């Protein structure tokens, strides 16, 4: 850090994030003396009110934790119950749940890149302003987001709080015509996703390297989305049932979101951590598109998170939907 300035930044409500958060940053003599991300989203008590409900009701309830990622909660809950009951829903259900999950990654990544993150990198207040200067890029992004929502709805009837997942499988399987229609759209979107990778890589990013621990799921033969072991780049390799042995949740005064530590220290999850740990599981077409950017992974530059999202977005378009 150059200079010895004192800076105080307080953002009472963060814009373009999910949920409610505030940021407080104090810099004294050019060094950060206080940095707090304050999550003031009030507690809703899911941990307690799911008690006493039958499994399929719980699956409908936990979706409401988050409107942007309801599938993640539903898939976690359904797998927990199936493990408890020793129920194996079989390969088709497992594969199609991963497809539904791909729909969530597709819409959430497209939303994140275009509506939340990119305006910052390009100097706009929001996506609507950005659309005046980057109409094609924004249209491409919104189209990919819609495709992701439609892929969720294929299995869940709607994209926010879908109603399709149940213990043992799904409530309903999509028809051949519906599957064929969406398969065509996924293929047609591939060149757009490839262009998106290039676009994210071309943004003028800071070269800000930091040491951090990446944590993600890893699966023996696919890029882990739905299932896998918990791994880190520091040698962690455990089953999810061993979570409590290594991870700890802590309640801090400034935040209603609990903080978590792995072996007593902080760690990173999300697209950058996942790509760092699973890059060799990318399908070859995605790996080629990433290689063309010249940016190598694993990366210790946090600003590569957006590129990692674009890479995962390309990967999920290659998912295979098939009939039982």
């Amino acid at each position, binding site marked *: 850090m150059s200079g010895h300035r004192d800076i105080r930044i307080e953002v009472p*409500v963060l814009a373009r994030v999910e949920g*409610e958060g505030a940021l407080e940053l104090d810099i004294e003599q050019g060094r950060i003396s206080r940095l707090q991300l304050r999550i003031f989203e009030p507690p809703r008590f899911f941990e307690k009110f799911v008690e006493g409900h039958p499994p399929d009701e719980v699956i409908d309830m936990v979706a409401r934790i988050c409107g942007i990622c309801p599938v993640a909660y539903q898939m976690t809950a359904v797998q927990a119950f199936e493990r408890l009951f020793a129920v194996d829903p079989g390969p088709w259900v497992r594969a199609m749940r991963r497809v539904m999950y791909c729909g969530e990654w597709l819409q959430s990544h497209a939303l994140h890149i275009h509506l939340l993150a990119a305006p910052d990198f390009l100097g706009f207040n929001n996506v609507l302003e950005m659309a005046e200067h980057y109409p094609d890029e924004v249209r491409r992004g919104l189209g990919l987001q819609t495709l992701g929502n439609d892929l969720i709805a294929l299995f869940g009837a709607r994209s926010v709080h879908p109603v399709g997942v149940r213990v043992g499988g799904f409530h309903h399987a999509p028809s051949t015509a519906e599957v064929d229609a969406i398969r065509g759209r996924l293929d047609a979107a591939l060149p757009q996703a490839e262009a998106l990778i290039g676009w994210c890589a071309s943004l003028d990013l800071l070269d800000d390297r930091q040491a951090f621990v990446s944590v993600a799921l890893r699966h023996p033969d696919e890029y882990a989305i739905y299932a896998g072991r918990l791994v880190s780049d520091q040698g962690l390799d455990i089953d999810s049932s061993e979570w409590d042995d290594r991870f700890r949740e802590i309640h*801090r005064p400034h935040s209603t979101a609990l903080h978590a530590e792995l072996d007593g220290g902080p760690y990173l999850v999300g697209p950058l951590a996942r790509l760092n740990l699973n890059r060799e599981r990318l399908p070859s077409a995605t790996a080629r598109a990433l290689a063309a950017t010249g940016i190598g992974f694993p990366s210790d530059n946090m600003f590569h998170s957006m590129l990692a999202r674009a890479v995962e977005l390309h990967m999920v378009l290659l998912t295979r939907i098939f009939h039982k």
Partner: protein
Amino acid sequence: MNRPKIAVHKFSSCDGCQLALLNLGETLLELPKLVDIVHFAEAGPMDETAHVDVALVEGSINTEHDLARIRRIRDNSDYLISIGACATSGGLQALRNMADARAWEAAIYARPEYLDSLDTATPISAHVRVDLALWGCPVNSSQVLAALRDRLFGVAPREERRPLCMECKRLGRVCTLVTRQTACMGPVTRAGCGALCPRMGRDCYACYGPAEQVNGESLGRRFEGFGLLPVDVARRFQFINSAAPAFREAGERFGDGQ
């Protein structure tokens, strides 16, 4: 043209109802032609205290801070629309209104004293006047756009009050209650979702709130005939919209040990 100003506010929620706008796809880019979005934190625009023509409010009131905020929003808005179950009935989190909220805090949080949390999750209408309530968990895009258009063109909104069964029949769906004896809430739930659950061959779980004239007694008895215990019947009513009066009362009738 002087475009009407709108604001989107969030209280305790999952953000899912705001997605009725953010998931519009290319239509999202048309929105600024219709309205001037002055506050919508998740999308970017930030002017929380601006005076607006229409305020869309998501989420339930859960904290002391929320109470002050919603009053200020009401003062600053000509027309206030509650969007979704959380804002309109208290939503799923209103289940805590029937429990010992302090005990729940202590069970989950190491330091409950850090929290600003009221004992109840309440709808917007419990605190300020609401001009139009949209039901659903989540509301869908066409509900929100129709409400905005009606307001902008000075048309009285047509509130959907009919039960889901009407919509389900109109779509030509096979009744899951009659043919499969599922505990489908369609007969007492407001239409408007497109009969999504019956289309998936499953029971409606009432995320669109109570329809007009809920006959909870009779539907509950029918469920008992399918083998549900009274407590199971109570849970059907006291779910996503447990604090909506018609559902709360129906649930109490079965839940109180009959």
